[in-house]
């Protein structure tokens, strides 16, 4: 390989030191300017696209190798699930009508129905701390930074970077992630923070005599305006009152199986948060 940019006449140590200084510059500027992240996502897209094809091939072989018996039992299970879900759907229809009437009585504007788009996951980066996925919808499909991302079960995370063809999603379990929630059926505002662990989130800053208990469901509160209210986030799985700690340690099991996502739903909540470019 030829020596690019760098003449070989300089000693190796000097070349390494210059590259270290250059790396510091690149790292610091990429942290400061979010646009650099969006550009690097664009550059990475071809590699990620190929990696998705690899994953798809893997999944197809997996399906192919599944036995007939396993497929039949899965079919039976799904049918049973459908039968159970049918009455709930009917109930939801009735409730929606009722809600519309009540809102009309209150002279309040009815909540406009949201739009969703299905996106495929094309790349992952799971490390202790950062839990990032890349989905194959980008600004060209109207995806924007801060957009809520859902999956079967509830909230999965939010968009943190976008390129024309892809977007990077930080899962709820990412260390930098935090989402405003409330217990279902109550109005106490709470936060759920990512811990870097896929199966466990945390509710910070709750006093030791907190009324929260194991089994409580948490839903989005709608505060902050990023996530619409009432989406499933998770269930409290442990409340530890430790004598020498100022706060209770509360663990939350996410409603979505965050490690096993292959498709996600991008959610446009209302026309106000939807950019004009949406087809």
């Amino acid at each position, binding site marked *: *390989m030829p020596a690019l940019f*760098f003449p070989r006449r300089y000693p190796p140590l000097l070349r390494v030191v210059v590259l270290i200084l250059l790396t510091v510059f690149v790292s610091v500027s990429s942290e400061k300017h979010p646009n650099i992240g969006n550009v690097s996502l664009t550059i990475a897209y071809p590699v990620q696209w190929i990696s998705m094809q690899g994953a798809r091939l893997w999944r197809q072989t997996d399906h192919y190798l599944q036995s007939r018996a396993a497929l039949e039992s899965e079919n039976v299970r799904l049918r049973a699930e459908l039968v159970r879900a049918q009455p709930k759907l009917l109930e939801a229809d009735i409730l929606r009508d009722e809600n519309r009437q009540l809102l009309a009585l209150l002279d309040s504007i009815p909540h406009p129905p949201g739009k969703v788009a299905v996106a495929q996951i094309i790349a*992952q980066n799971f490390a202790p701390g950062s839990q990032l996925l890349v989905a194959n919808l980008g600004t060209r499909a109207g995806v924007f930074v801060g957009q809520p991302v859902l999956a079967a079960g509830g909230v999965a995370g939010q968009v943190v970077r976008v390129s024309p063809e892809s977007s990077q999603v930080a899962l709820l379990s990412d260390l930098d992630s935090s989402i405003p929630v409330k217990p279902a059926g109550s109005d106490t505002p709470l936060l759920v923070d990512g811990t870097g662990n896929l199966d466990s989130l945390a509710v910070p800053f709750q006093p030791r005599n907190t009324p929260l208990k194991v089994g409580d469901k948490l839903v989005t509160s709608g505060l902050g305006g990023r996530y619409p209210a009432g989406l499933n986030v998770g269930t409290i799985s442990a409340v530890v009152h430790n004598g020498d700690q100022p706060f209770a340690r509360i663990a939350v099991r996410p409603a979505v199986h965050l490690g096993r996502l292959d498709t996600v739903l991008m959610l446009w909540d209302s026309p106000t948060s939807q950019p004009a470019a949406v087809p």
Partner: protein
Amino acid sequence: MIAVVVVLGFFFALTAEAIPCGPFYALLHPDFVALLLLYWAISSASELSFTVVWLIGLLQDMVLGDVLGAQAIAGVVMIYLLYTGIARVRSLASWEQLFFIFMLLLAHRLLVWSWQAWAGTITWHFSLLLGPLIGALLWPLFTLTLDYLRHALRLNHT
């Protein structure tokens, strides 16, 4: 011809880094790009350019979507460390190189970790040591496969 094979190799190593196969794969897979860098540095007669190593690392950072520069600097330092003892490493059989490879991959992983920890995107966990360990254990198989491929394609040393 050799350039095409090298570029294709790194391209597939990069896709293998990001392939969405769930958390277990993420935990256990070795850093294929680092392994490939070590392979070419040991087996090619001319020296790798640090700038090229740096650019490959930067591309890996972009594909993983983490803080830019972590893989780049780790790759450069790893190859620099390798070149300080290159004559000794080359004189060993591939299974004897295993220990050196483990130390280099470990240094690589720790550098990536410290760079990301500095940016605040990672916490410490002992599972971080599994990648280098598995990478080193795969090293003899990895070199044998690539040597065989190079022989089959009649690629000479450069």
